[in-house]
């Protein structure tokens, strides 16, 4: 048994009937109506509780929670630049470790959390993240993936899927929107051979909270990839953001899985997958795609999902 499997073997899990009541993130933050990103972060913080130090990259979640002179955080929180979130959380973790060793403080069970959007994870902060994962600091990194730089006005990132229209990859006469495929960030984290990697969606809150709690119990780094719908940037209704997140899982666009000690485990097998066109229909960023484009994307999604099933050892 690996170190991760050993650490989580007695974990019972949360359920909807007795959710922890603690809210480390307070109401009154300035996120848009129906924000899926703050919803994912809220659920994650609920699972972690208050014995936590949070490092935040620049991005929506930093802007909406901390406009001066107010803060929505009830726990220690530091905002740093896009590039160095993981470097700062490494330093915080190392400082706590050293101070515990020297007897200056006695707080051995603090959780260290760093989070950033997809831009700060997959584009700008990837080298600091890679370094922190490689050094094996005991922290959790959460990527809140809303598939573009939403905070500055919907610019494309390397996490934007093929065909999505953004302000820097606009759809038009000579363009079909984003021309490259989504970067597989969880696979990059798995390649660091860290104990725990998982993907989660706020449409499945118990699953998401269980994964966050497991990540906090495991010694060593953990990487979590959260699918975070953005009604403003994706051009869907604010009330539909959870429905879009659910549909993304059901149409195999965003499969939920964990990687424990390098072993892939499927969290939720999609028995009757929905066609990807149903997922596209809810969002205006995909409105320009033709039947052939959708067919091509469907084939690629199917192939990726089949490959994932093979890695998990599940029969299709």
């Amino acid at each position: 048994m690996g170190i991760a499997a050993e650490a989580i073997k007695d974990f019972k899990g949360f359920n909807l009937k007795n959710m922890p009541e603690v809210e480390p993130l307070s109401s009154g933050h300035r996120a848009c109506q129906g924000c899926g990103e703050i919803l994912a972060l809220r659920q994650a913080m609920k699972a972690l509780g208050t014995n936590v130090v949070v490092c935040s990259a620049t991005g929506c979640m930093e802007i909406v929670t901390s406009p001066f002179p107010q803060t929505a955080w009830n726990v220690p929180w530091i905002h740093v630049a896009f590039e160095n979130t993981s470097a700062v959380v490494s330093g915080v973790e190392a400082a706590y470790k050293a101070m515990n060793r020297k007897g200056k403080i006695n707080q051995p069970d603090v959780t260290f959390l760093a989070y950033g959007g997809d831009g700060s994870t997959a584009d700008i902060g990837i080298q600091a993240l890679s370094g922190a994962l490689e050094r094996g600091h005991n922290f959790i990194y959460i990527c809140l993936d809303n598939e573009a730089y939403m905070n500055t006005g919907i610019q494309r990132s390397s996490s934007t899927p093929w065909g999505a229209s953004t302000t820097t990859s606009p759809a038009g006469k000579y363009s079909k929107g984003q021309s490259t495929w989504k970067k597989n960030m969880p696979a990059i984290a798995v390649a660091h051979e860290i104990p725990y990697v998982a993907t989660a969606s706020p449409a499945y809150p118990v699953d998401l909270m269980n994964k966050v709690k497991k990540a906090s119990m495991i010694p060593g780094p953990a990487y979590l990839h959260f699918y975070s719908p953005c009604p403003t940037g994706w051009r869907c209704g604010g009330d539909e953001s959870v429905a879009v997140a659910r549909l993304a899982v059901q149409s195999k666009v965003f499969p939920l899985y964990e990687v424990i000690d390098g072993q892939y485990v499927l969290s939720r097998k999609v028995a009757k997958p929905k066609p990807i066109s149903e997922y596209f229909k809810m969002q205006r960023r995909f409105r320009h795609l033709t039947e052939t484009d959708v067919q091509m994307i469907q084939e690629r999604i199917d192939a990726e999902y089949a490959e994932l099933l093979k890695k998990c050892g599940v029969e299709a």
Partner: protein
Amino acid sequence: MAKETGIMSWKELELGNSITRPGNAGELKTGDWRSMRPVTDYEKCTKCGQCYIFCPDMVYKKNAEGYYEQNYYYCKGCGICAHECPVSCIAMVQEGD
């Protein structure tokens, strides 16, 4: 300090511009962003807690009887609760009616 808007003069700031109370965004009234208001029909409610866990603004709170009640001071009126309720007991009502 105007607590509901968070706007304050520099004379009211603490030394070093520090924020002395954690979570003081809780004073901000985000409820006035709303144009539609969620109203729960407690006859139909099954206390499943979906509205509570899917609310991005932590509006819902369990009362003594186990029902989830809205705090309209924070509700931005996004409508996720009404959309996700499995028994459709939450209705979105026009504000001001």
